[in-house]
């Protein structure tokens, strides 16, 4: 393991930011620290960087305990949330700063800075000051500045938070590609699940100072370990009385269930092929979602959200529909149980 965090705790006054956290990160991966605000994700990042001193616990990088190594000597590159570019330095000087501190020779600095400027695609803008750059460009400069001294580890604090939505998507792809090109182990913090899923190799999901789950985005999506993980990743509505849905029965210790839009199928009344699995519902409202239609359906008092292709004939509000639910995540106190529709198992020979 490249980065190892063992039993890390940190309190601010009487607020517990980190509660005995342990996590390890493999070399060469891009890890997303995901969680709601106040969940401790930023504290983990700042502790690794040395910007925050944990109350207890150890941090290892490449097998070396770095708790007592000063922040500036940890060999870490840090990209700040609001970039923290040096406002009185040009793009060139910003990127060169770390190298100048290391007292590298001028020729090397010049080469390295040019190389990075072309990596971030800002050729020709090296003489500009931060205020002359757009948000996305500033972000790229901050990234290059962190990379310049060849760190072993790159940390990014909410790298896309300050950028407007349109540029954000583009920058995400760019960052992912560039990091894999450079091949540096990276950890970034985000509160946006979509961002974490899209960018990271692995996600560390935090909540209330604890780690809920660690895994690949797909694992987190398919096999949420905790009710929090199930609710935080992906879309879905929590329902009670899930056992009233056809094909499901009550399980001991699971009071409610999470249902995702992609677990449900909606048909015009009478068009369902499997009457023994079909629940009757009424369309309550529908929203145009750009690439699909979102339906809110009342099934015997249970409110279900489903996506419906725009290619199909649209539903009217108040229209009775057939609804098939294929899977559910049953939510316990601490655990999640994924259950398939029992009736669906019996007909798995039929290809839908």
């Amino acid at each position: 393991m490249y980065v190892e965090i063992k039993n890390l705790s940190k309190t601010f006054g009487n607020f517990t930011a980190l509660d005995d956290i342990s996590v390890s990160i493999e070399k060469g991966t891009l890890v997303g620290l995901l969680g709601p605000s106040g969940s401790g994700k930023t504290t983990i990042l700042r502790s690794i960087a040395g910007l925050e001193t944990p109350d207890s616990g150890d941090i290892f990088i490449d097998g070396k305990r770095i708790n007592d190594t000063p922040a500036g000597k940890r060999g870490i590159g840090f990209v700040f949330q609001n970039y923290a570019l040096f406002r009185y330095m040009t793009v060139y000087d910003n990127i060169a700063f770390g190298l100048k501190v290391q007292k590298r020779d001028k020729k090397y600095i010049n080469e390295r800075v040019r190389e990075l400027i072309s990596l971030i695609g800002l050729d020709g803008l090296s003489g500009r000051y931060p205020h002359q750059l757009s948000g996305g460009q500033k972000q790229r400069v901050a990234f290059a500045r962190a990379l310049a001294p060849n760190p072993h580890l790159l940390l990014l604090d909410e790298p896309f938070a300050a950028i407007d939505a349109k540029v954000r998507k583009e920058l995400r792809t760019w960052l992912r590609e560039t990091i894999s090109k450079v091949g540096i182990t990276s950890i970034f913090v985000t509160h946006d699940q979509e961002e974490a899923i899209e960018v990271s190799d692995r996600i560390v999901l935090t909540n209330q100072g604890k780690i809920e789950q660690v895994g690949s985005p797909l694992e987190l999506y398919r096999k949420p370990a905790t009710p929090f993980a199930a609710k935080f990743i992906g879309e879905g509505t929590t329902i009670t009385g899930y056992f009233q849905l056809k094909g499901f029965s009550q399980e001991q210790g699971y009071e409610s269930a999470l249902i995702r839009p992609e677990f449900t199928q909606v048909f015009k009344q009478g068009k369902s092929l499997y009457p023994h699995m079909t629940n009757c519902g009424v369309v309550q409202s529908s929203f145009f979602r750009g690439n699909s239609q979102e339906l809110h359906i009342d099934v015997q008092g249970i409110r279900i959200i489903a996506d419906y292709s725009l290619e199909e004939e649209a539903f009217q509000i108040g229209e009775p529909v057939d609804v098939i639910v294929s899977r559910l995540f049953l939510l316990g106190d601490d655990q999640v149980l994924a259950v398939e529709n029992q009736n669906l198992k019996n007909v798995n020979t039929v290809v839908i």
Partner: protein
Amino acid sequence: MSLLTFTRGEICAMNIVTTKLRRFAPRRKAHVIPGFGLSVGVTITLISLIVVIPLLSVLVALSGISWREFWGIVTDKMVLHAYQVSFVCSLIAAVVNCVFGLLLAWVLTRYKFPGRRILDGLIELPFALPTAVAGIALTTIYADQGWIGKIFAPLGIKISYTQVGITIALIFIGIPFVVRSVQPVLEKLDSQYEEAAQMLGASRVRTFFKVLMPELLPALLTGFGLAFSRGLGEYGSVVFIAGNIPYKTQIAPLLIMGKLEQFSYAGATSIALVMIVIAFILLFSINFIQSHMNKAAKNN
């Protein structure tokens, strides 16, 4: 210094204590930015040397006299009267400064006119002009034969060597405080704010008092507090124009000066202590208003 010599045993004992403490105390806080120890150390040392120790000397000096003596000095009729003159003149001056300070800040931020920058630059004249120079200049022009005193003398109004003169000197010295407190707030206050109120049909006067005033009040209060506090302590610009007539134009700082000239240190120090306490109350009130202002600004 003898205070700082320890025996070897004592040092050993201290080491044990500190290592023990270190084990139980939370780990040293991370200061990523360098220079914490040095900058805090220098700051505390210099504040102690220049401000704290000298001020504590007032208490040391007063430890020699009894409470009754102290009370006797500070409630002496002449002393009380001097406080009263200081207080009333400073208060009137601060109120006048609030009116004109607000007006000046308004005109300087909302109107563009030739000479605006010069007018703006002149506001700080009382900060830049040595108080003694202001003092002799004001005394001379407000004296009976002076440029302005001449106008009022035939009407039987004397300005120099009266409380009116003191107040004028304090207006002079206090005006920048109010303007410079209010001006930045007015600058930040978007004119859209007023426009919005006017779109809703509010009259100009109503807009001013209902919409702008609440926003400006903390800054105005700060300016008032600063001007008032400066007025209470002011010496250079009032000493000449006051004339130091007991029961008439004797102000508190002049009284301290008088006691010192008579080598009545207990008297001077007692009066000073009362003024220091008042100054502290004002200082804390101003800081309180300002921290509230910052909080309000953050909430927006």
